[in-house]
């Protein structure tokens, strides 16, 4: 029994189970982050305090930020997305259940790799969650903790990429018949927006982290040279970092929208405007990051553009605030705990948003940059608005997740203590606009003591609020009163399935507020309900796979080896290879089968397959990834006074011939795909074999070119300057993509040795997309690195 229970939680791929895993794990990391925050506030409570030393304080600040942003706030939203997106759109599960589990385990192990830095020589990462260059260079941060933090972030970036593809494909492909875009619940909409932001922002972080690790471990010079340096890192990091603020915020806003509707007994006012605002936020969020760089000496015109863009983003957010208020206007608002937290989130966001407008001003920003005013601002937005919204979501959906009610009185006490504690911590910071961030202590004559003491008292009160919250959860789980099927009269599809027993009365839910979402669906809602109730319990062990945890463990151990040494790295690679072979073997023997969904509402992707859509989403993120790498090359090239002329280092005829070999492999792959489309599979295996052979020849020539460069006289290495750094990292990453493609080709050839099925033909088509992308990247790499 216990063994089965453990296996379930290690091997599950069911979206509800994975959602619960995300929920519990994110609170675990949140607890660690809160503990570090408490240490910091204790240190800053009084002047000249020696509770923490400078080194410990820097580690606490850095790890608090990393854990909060990457392992608590954002994943908590993903927990609810995992659990509730499929039922909200009438799907059985997420599009790719095993990838969903993989995404979770990568996230969990990534957190451990980062946190384990505390136990490494030199301690944990200490350069701030922004990893600013040159603080993160090996010169200023020689500790393994910094390497481990970057490794953990690489793993979590992989997790996000996989998770994003999965949730996007689910929303685009698995909506029930009748679930058009405009009928989607607002939580699903705002998760959709979050996924779009993640899809294009995290590749920038991943590219930056790979360059950072390359600087630290291989001696390249992306962020240690004058031509690249801190400005290059700022660009790469904040292109991810500012959208990340909204990545953390938007799931909470989506949940708050659901709560406002249900507890105001009203449909959302101007839903189309709210959706439009969401799209506007996604687009604008990528154009405003420069306000984090006003003091770095960037181009003045661009500073003005960033100022205007930053102020512009307040328009869609302002529209959302008006929509929230209009939804509640003259309605019978029911002040239950979820609604209190939603209102708290709204109030806190208004304060955070207004102070953000101050920061967008070029003149004010220069005065406030690097002070506690900014700390107050971003905690109001990222922590307050998000956390209160997600607490509201927890109180709202807990009965659905557990079948039990939380105590309203404890919930209201939690809200009261939290809102007092939160404002006590962060509101005084708006008056500490002359106190620099990240200082370990201060003297009494600065006058900062009383406000800091107030903030520290607030921190203890805030933590006390969370103890009440935890008590409420545990008490409810152990002996809470059973929840009614739809305790809040929710109107979205997830309330039509009921963990605690019989089906919920969906008609009541739909008609009670005059927004008959369910009855407006063309499908029989009972069939929708029954479809997603089969998940987990009835499919059972078919939904189990050990491969996601094995694969994640292998990657985590391998990347932890970057900090702990070569043997650990090799051990990780062995586990990784073993897991990959196991995964492929499972596929070849059809050991993991999940029944396909019935066709639903797939506009505008009616004619494609979900795997193709998933592959395209992956390629979409890869566009940004390689774009950032090549953009970084262009950046340092433009900033660097001397660059070797074409032909002085590289052998252009050989590189050109190699390019033609790769392009020819693209031809054979495309012929294979076209043959399958035309229904003539006679020569497809031969074409795949040709692609494999040409790819291998490309890699052999590339290896030989590397060898000649590294051993030449004088040698051309990653350490010899920016031309070497950019050449080896970019061609190395492209080569890694080619190698992954070659492994996949071997798999395809093995899989098709006994004949063809529609599934196998489709796999060739999907792989063809990847190979074409690899070709496309090279048509930029070749001219940029060899010819110009």
């Amino acid at each position: 029994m216990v063994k089965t229970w453990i296996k379930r939680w290690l091997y599950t791929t069911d979206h509800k189970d994975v959602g619960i895993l995300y929920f519990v794990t994110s609170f675990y990391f949140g607890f660690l982050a809160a503990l570090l925050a408490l240490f910091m506030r204790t240190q800053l409570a009084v002047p000249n305090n020696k509770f923490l030393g400078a080194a410990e304080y820097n580690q606490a600040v850095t790890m608090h930020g990393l854990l909060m942003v990457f392992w608590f706030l954002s994943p908590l939203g993903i927990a609810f997305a995992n659990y509730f997106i499929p039922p909200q759109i009438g799907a059985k599960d997420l599009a790719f259940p095993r990838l969903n589990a993989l995404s979770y385990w990568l996230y969990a192990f990534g957190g451990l790799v980062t946190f384990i830095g505390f136990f490494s020589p030199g301690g944990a990462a200490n350069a701030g969650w922004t990893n600013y260059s040159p603080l993160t260079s090996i010169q200023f941060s020689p500790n393994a903790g910094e390497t481990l933090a970057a490794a953990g972030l690489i793993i979590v970036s992989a997790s996000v990429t996989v998770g994003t593809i999965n949730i996007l494909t689910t929303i685009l492909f698995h909506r029930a018949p009748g679930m058009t875009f405009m009928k989607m619940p607002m939580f699903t909409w705002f998760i959709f927006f979050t996924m779009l932001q993640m899809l294009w922002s995290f590749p920038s972080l991943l590219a930056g982290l790979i360059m950072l690790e390359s600087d630290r471990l291989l001696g390249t010079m992306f962020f240690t040279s004058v031509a690249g340096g801190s400005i290059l890192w700022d660009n790469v990091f904040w292109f991810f970092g500012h959208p990340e603020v909204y990545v953390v915020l938007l799931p909470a806003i989506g949940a708050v929208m659901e709560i406002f509707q249900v507890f105001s007994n009203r449909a959302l006012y101007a839903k189309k405007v709210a959706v439009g605002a969401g799209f506007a936020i996604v687009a604008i969020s990528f154009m405003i990051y420069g306000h984090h760089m006003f003091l770095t000496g960037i181009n003045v015109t661009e500073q003005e553009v960033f100022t205007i863009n930053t102020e512009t983003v307040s328009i869609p957010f302002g529209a959302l605030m008006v929509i929230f208020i209009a939804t509640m206007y003259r309605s019978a608002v029911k002040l239950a705990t979820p609604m209190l937290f939603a209102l708290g989130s709204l109030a806190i966001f208004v304060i955070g948003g207004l102070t953000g407008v101050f920061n967008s001003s070029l003149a004010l920003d220069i005065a406030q940059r690097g002070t506690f005013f900014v700390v107050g601002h971003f905690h109001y937005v990222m922590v307050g608005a998000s956390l209160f919204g997600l607490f509201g979501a927890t109180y709202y959906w807990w009965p659905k997740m557990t079948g039990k009610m939380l105590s309203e009185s404890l919930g209201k006490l939690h809200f009261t203590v939290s809102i007092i504690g939160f404002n006590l911590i962060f509101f005084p910071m708006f008056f500490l606009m002359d106190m620099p961030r990240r200082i370990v202590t201060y003297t009494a004559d600065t006058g900062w003591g009383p406000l800091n003491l107030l903030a520290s008292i607030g921190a203890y009160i805030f933590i006390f609020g969370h103890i009440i919250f935890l008590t409420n959860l545990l008490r409810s789980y152990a002996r809470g009163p059973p929840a009614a099927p739809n305790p809040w009269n929710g109107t979205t599809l997830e309330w039509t399935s009921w963990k605690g027993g019989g089906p919920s009365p969906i008609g009541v839910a739909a008609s009670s507020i005059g927004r008959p979402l369910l009855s407006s669906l063309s499908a029989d809602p009972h069939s929708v309900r029954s479809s997603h109730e089969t998940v987990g319990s009835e499919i059972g062990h078919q939904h189990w796979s050990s491969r996601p945890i094995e694969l994640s463990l292998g990657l985590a151990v391998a990347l932890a080896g970057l900090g702990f040494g070569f043997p650990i790295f090799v051990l990780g690679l062995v586990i990784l290879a073993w897991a990959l072979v196991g995964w492929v073997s499972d596929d070849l023997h059809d050991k993991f089968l999940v029944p396909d969904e019935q066709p639903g509402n797939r506009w505008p992707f009616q004619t494609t397959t979900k795997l193709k859509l998933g592959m395209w989403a992956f390629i979409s993120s890869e566009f940004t990834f390689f774009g950032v790498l090549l953009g970084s090359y262009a950046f340092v090239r433009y900033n660097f006074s001397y660059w070797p002329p074409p032909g002085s280092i590289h052998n252009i005829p050989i590189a050109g011939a190699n390019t033609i070999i790769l392009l020819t492999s693209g031809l054979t792959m495309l012929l294979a795909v076209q043959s399958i489309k035309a229904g003539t599979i006679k020569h497809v295996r031969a074409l795949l074999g040709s692609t494999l052979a040409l790819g291998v020849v490309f890699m052999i020539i590339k290896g030989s070119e590397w060898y000649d460069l590294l051993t030449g006289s004088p040698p051309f290495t990653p350490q010899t300057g920016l031309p070497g750094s950019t050449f080896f990292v970019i061609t190395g990453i492209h080569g890694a993509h080619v190698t992954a493609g070659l492994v996949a080709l071997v798999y395809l050839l093995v899989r098709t040795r006994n004949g063809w099925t529609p599934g196998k033909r489709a796999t060739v088509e999907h792989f063809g997309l990847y190979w074409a992308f690899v070709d496309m990247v090279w048509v930029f790499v070749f001219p940029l690195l060899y010819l110009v």
Partner: protein
Amino acid sequence: MGYKLTPLAVWGYVVAVTIVQMVLVSYQSLSSSFLNPVIIVLAFSEAALIVMFGLQIWYEKPFIILAVASAFFTALAITLALGSIAH
């Protein structure tokens, strides 16, 4: 047979452009301020063909949404980074 013509035509174009790029670089008399933009534009034309036929947008039009959005955000990242250079 018709299904083979498009891949062959795409391949013929990208190979030809690769050769043209190499030939252009071999001319020492051409200035880099002229040559480099030409080479990059040619690379974009190759990439456009590969995206259209290799990435199947020509056959499955809805993917153009993802392609355009990806290209937009990628271009944005590069443009803003290069634009931030002060000199």
